[in-house]
C-alpha cells in the first residue's frame, strides 16, 4: 500500500495526470494519478489515507518548490490537473462523509478587479491541501463575500487584489466580514499587498504565494 501511495504522491508532485498524458516526458507511458488512485481504492486503501498520505503530500511538495522558485506555473498547473483527476475518484467519499475536508476556503477577487490567475493558483493549492474551495470568482462585492460566509459558517476567507485601486475594496470587505464575525479568519494576497497593509486593514494574514496561505492555515489547524 505504501508503495502505491508513494507513486500517487510522485504523480501529483510531477503533474502526471494519467497514462495518456505525455507530461512529464520521463514518465511517458506510465500510469498517472487517475489510474493509481482508482487502483488504490480497488485495493481497499481508505480514501482518507489516499488524501492525507499521498495527495496532500504531493501537492504540498510542489507548492513548496513553487515557493522556492524551483518549479514554475506550468508545473503547478499540471500538478493541480493531476490532483483534479485524483479527486474525481474521492468525490463519493466526501459526499458520504467517509472523507472530510480540512475546512472551507471562500475565495475571490475583490470588487473592481477582474484578475484571476493568482486567485486560481491559490484555489488549486488550497484544494490540493485538503480544503474545500468555494470560488466566488472575480469582481466580488463585500456583501457577496459576507453572504458566502453566512452560508458556510466557520469558513476561512481569502481575498485577492492585483490593482492598487481596488485595495480599498479589500479593506471594506475585511471590515464587513469582521463586523459580522470578529473571529472570522481573512487572508489577503495580491501584487500590491504587504504585511503592513494586511495588518492595517485588519486581515489575519498576508501571503506572497499560495503555499504560504496553505501553510498558515495548516499551522493554525494543527494548533486548534
Amino acid at each position, binding site marked *: 500500500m505504501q508503495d502505491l501511495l508513494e507513486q500517487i504522491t510522485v504523480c501529483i508532485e510531477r503533474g502526471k495526470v494519467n497514462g495518456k498524458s505525455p507530461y512529464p516526458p520521463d514518465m511517458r507511458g506510465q500510469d498517472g494519478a487517475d489510474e493509481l488512485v482508482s487502483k488504490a481504492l480497488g485495493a481497499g486503501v481508505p480514501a482518507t489515507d489516499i488524501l492525507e498520505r499521498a495527495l496532500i503530500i504531493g501537492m504540498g511538495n510542489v507548492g513548496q518548490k513553487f515557493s522556492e522558485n524551483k518549479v514554475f506555473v*506550468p*508545473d503547478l498547473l499540471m500538478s493541480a490537473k493531476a490532483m483534479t483527476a485524483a479527486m474525481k475518484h474521492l468525490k463519493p467519499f466526501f459526499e458520504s462523509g467517509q472523507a472530510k475536508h480540512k475546512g472551507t476556503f471562500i475565495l475571490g477577487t475583490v470588487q473592481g478587479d*477582474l484578475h484571476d490567475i493568482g486567485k486560481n493558483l491559490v484555489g488549486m493549492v488550497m484544494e490540493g491541501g485538503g480544503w474545500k474551495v468555494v470560488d466566488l470568482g472575480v469582481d466580488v462585492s463585500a456583501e457577496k463575500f459576507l453572504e458566502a460566509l453566512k452560508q458556510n459558517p466557520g469558513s476561512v476567507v481569502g481575498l485577492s487584489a492585483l490593482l*492598487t485601486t481596488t485595495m480599498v475594496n479589500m479593506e471594506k470587505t475585511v471590515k464587513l466580514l469582521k463586523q459580522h464575525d470578529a473571529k472570522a479568519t481573512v487572508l489577503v494576497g495580491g*501584487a*500590491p499587498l504587504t504585511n503592513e497593509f494586511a495588518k492595517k486593514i485588519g486581515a489575519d494574514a498576508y501571503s506572497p504565494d499560495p503555499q504560504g496561505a496553505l501553510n498558515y492555515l495548516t499551522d493554525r489547524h494543527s494548533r486548534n
Partner: protein
Amino acid sequence: MGTLTGIERIHNILKRKPVDRIGLYEHFWGDTHKKWSGEGHLGKDEPFEDHFPFDIQECGALNLVARLDFQPEVIEETDETILARDGNGAVLRRHKLHDTTPEHVDFLVKDRGAWEEHIKPHLTPDPKRINFENYRNVKKRAAERGRFFAWCGINVFELMHPVCGHEYMLMGMAVDPDWVKDMVNTYANLLVDLMEILFGQEGYPDGIWYYEDMGFKGRPFISLDMYREIIQPAHKKTVGYAKDRGLPVIMHSCGMVAPLVPGMIEAGIDCLQVIEVKAGMDLLQLYQDYGDRLSFMGGIDVRVLYSNDRRRIDEELLLKIPVVKNNFGYVLHSDHSIPDQVQYNSYRYFIEKGLELGNY
C-alpha cells in the same frame, strides 16, 4: 556637456554613453488623465508627453487579432462590465468604469487543433493590420519635438495568451511544447513581416520597444530553461531584426522577471523596463548584476508615489538614482504606471527631484 535632445539622450542611455541627465518617461492609467485634467492641471486633450519633459514618444501601429474583420460579439452587459467574444475567439469581461485588464472567461483555443483551425490561418502579414497614418503622424511629431521615437510591438508571450489564456498557454508549454513553439514562431514571423512592410513604407523609428509580461508576484511564469527553449528563439528573431538595422531595443515586462534577465540579454535587448518593485524586482541588484550590459527604465516604487509623501519620495529617489545613474544607462520611470491616487503635485515633485539627482 550641453543640453541634449530626447533623441540624443535616449540613444546614449541605451548604449550607456555620457549624457547631460538621466532620461525621463512615464506611463499613466487612463483615469489619471481624467482626474488631473478635471483638476485643471492638464488640458482635456493635452498628451502627457507635451506637458512633462519626456524624452520618448511611443507608437503602436499593429492589430494582431486573428480575425481582423470580426465585430466583437457582446454576450452580456451590466452597468459596470461588458462580456464579449473577440476576433481571437476569446470571451473576456472588461470593466466599463475604470482601467483594468480583462477577466479571462473562456477561450476557443485550448490546444493545438483549435489553434491550427481557427487562428493560425488568419495570421498573415496583411497591410490592413497596420495603421500607417498613426505611425507617420507620431513619428513626425516626435521628430519635431526632439523626442526618441519608439515603435512599440507586443511580443510573443503577450500575443499568445489573449488567444488561449495563461492557463492553457502555460500548460501547453508542459504538455505540448511543440504547439506553443509553433505559436511563438508564427507570431515572431508575423511581427517581423509587418515591421518590414511598415518601416519599408514609412521609415525606421529611433528604437523598438517590445512589450511582454512574463512575471507576476515573486516569480516569472516560467523557468529560465523554459524561456530559453520556448520563448527566446522568438526574442532572438524579433530583437535581432531590430539590431541588424541598428535599432536599440527596450523590453518591457511586468512582474518578477529577474531570473529571466540573463536570457533576455542573450536575446540582445539593450534596456529592461519596468522593474516592478512590488512584484519583487530590485533595481539596485539588477544594476549591480547587469549594469555593464543593460540599461534600465523604471524601478521606482509607485506605492511611494501614491503615498503622496514627499519625504518618502525623497528617500526612494536618494536610495536609487545616485547609484543607477553611474553608468549613464537609466531612464526615470515608476515601476509600473501612475494611478489616479498619485496627486499631480506629487508627480511633478517626483520628476523635478529625480531629474535634479539625475543631472551629471
